[in-house]
């Protein structure tokens, strides 16, 4: 019996040492995730997350300083994708996401002050000084940077309208 105890203890010791050595020798220094996470971000550098651009936000997320839910234009989809990629568990019910949204200008309220078009990260707002502005639907990422800039509240976020071409069947409810 003594022999059995001794041999098992020695085996455990040996294997544990091996694991420790492997951790030192084979440690991965650089983090290849950052570039990958950055490619998943919207890339419009809107600044809504509080970081100076998507690259900085990607670094912060990978290093754990920012939550995966920090990107408003990315919404639930991006948060879920990041959570899966990074192996983090998140409570998606806390993320406010009612679907993709785009900005819409109420033409009767717009005074043409151009404050909104200056901050749009993708130049989706077009219009000259003292002219009514409008939003290019294909360019708008839904980052909402323009909303607070408008002095007359002419800008609102509306859900992307569903068209016949883009309608998809809902998922069946499982038994």
């Amino acid at each position, binding site marked *: 019996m003594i022999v059995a105890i001794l041999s098992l203890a020695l085996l455990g010791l040996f294997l544990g040492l091996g694991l420790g050595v492997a951790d030192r020798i084979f440690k991965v220094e650089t983090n290849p995730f950052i570039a990958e996470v950055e490619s998943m971000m919207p890339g419009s550098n809107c600044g809504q997350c509080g970081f100076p651009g998507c690259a900085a936000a990607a670094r912060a997320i990978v290093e754990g300083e920012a939550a995966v839910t920090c990107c408003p234009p990315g919404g*639930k*989809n991006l948060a879920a994708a990041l959570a899966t990629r990074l192996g983090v568990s998140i409570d998606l019910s806390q993320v406010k996401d009612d*679907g*993709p949204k785009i900005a819409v200008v109420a033409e009767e309220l717009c005074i043409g002050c151009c404050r909104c078009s200056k901050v749009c990260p993708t130049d989706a707002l077009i219009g000259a000084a003292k002219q009514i502005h409008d939003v290019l639907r294909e360019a708008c990422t839904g980052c909402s940077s323009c909303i607070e800039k408008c002095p007359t509240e002419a800008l609102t976020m509306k859900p992307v309208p*569903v068209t016949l071409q*883009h*309608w*998809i*069947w*809902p*998922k*069946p409810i499982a038994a």
Partner: protein
Amino acid sequence: MSLNTATLPAPAVAPHVSGAGSVTRTMLIVQAALLPATLYGFWLYGWPAIFLFLLTVGACVFFEFFCLRLAGKAPAAHLLDGSAVLTGWLLALTLPPWAPWWVAVVGGLLAIVFGKHVFGGIGQNPFNPAMVARVALLVSFPIPMTLWVAPLPITAANAPGILEGLRIMLGSLPIPDAVSSATLLGHAKTELSRGVDLLHSLGAAHGPMLSLIGERSGSLGETAAWLILGGGLAMLFLGVISWHIPLAMLAGIALPAAIGHAGNPARYLDVGSHLLSGGVMLGAFFIATDYVTSPSTAPGKLIFGFGCGFLTYVIRTWGGYPEGVAFAVLLMNTLTPVIDRFTMPRILGRDRRGQPLSIKS
């Protein structure tokens, strides 16, 4: 998460007609196929067997109800699909006919709770629930699970009456020594381990001829091998099961048995004894063919069936237990997902490896 659907409630989806039977219909056909053998077993073994059967089925239904309530599902609708009753029925057919009541109850618990609902309910279990229960019972309670009785037809003079039968099942009356007996396989293995070869041990009392009529000891589902076979063929013709698993499993036992017996008849049992004793017929037609735990593709079914049969033969001949069907089925259940993956059908327009076909110009 569907982001682009209209705000109307989900529209009805094609197809708008259905040609399917229902799960309940399938279960009813299986139970009807089992009925002749079960009634014959009742006649052979008398009242204790009847009570044991009723208690096993009842315990399974009770635990199913309990689990469904726990899962928050409406019990009535799901109980009606008949799967719990079928599990109990099959389990009862594999138990010793005069086993005590607690074997039935523990068996029900093991089958339904640990064999099925722990994995998510119907359709989610990787192992056959009845076999999980049987194996767990056999390993945990070897004595009651191997205490076989010789057939004592219900009409015989010294057969226990209703009350006596109830008391035997409830354990208050011990099984009379004169009645207990060993199964053919059990006897053969015991004698072989004692050095007595088959030609001498299998006398008239255990001759294979008796297996045909079933007038020998065994579990409820074992003795009436021909009735089980008949029920199995009925299910085959009604399209409830396909021929692949039963044929492959019987071949998996018959082929090695034929080779072995031809080589050394003193050591290896003949094909007839193998096929007609133990749970082979029940296993081939009712247990290995369980939809949930067997492969879905035809080649996969053949591999699965053959594996079950072959493993049964190996366990019976060289293993520690005289009967191997339950172990064999469980072992092959572990391989079912792998078999499914490697026997996927060929998609039209693609080759076996899944690449698009090349265009022959």
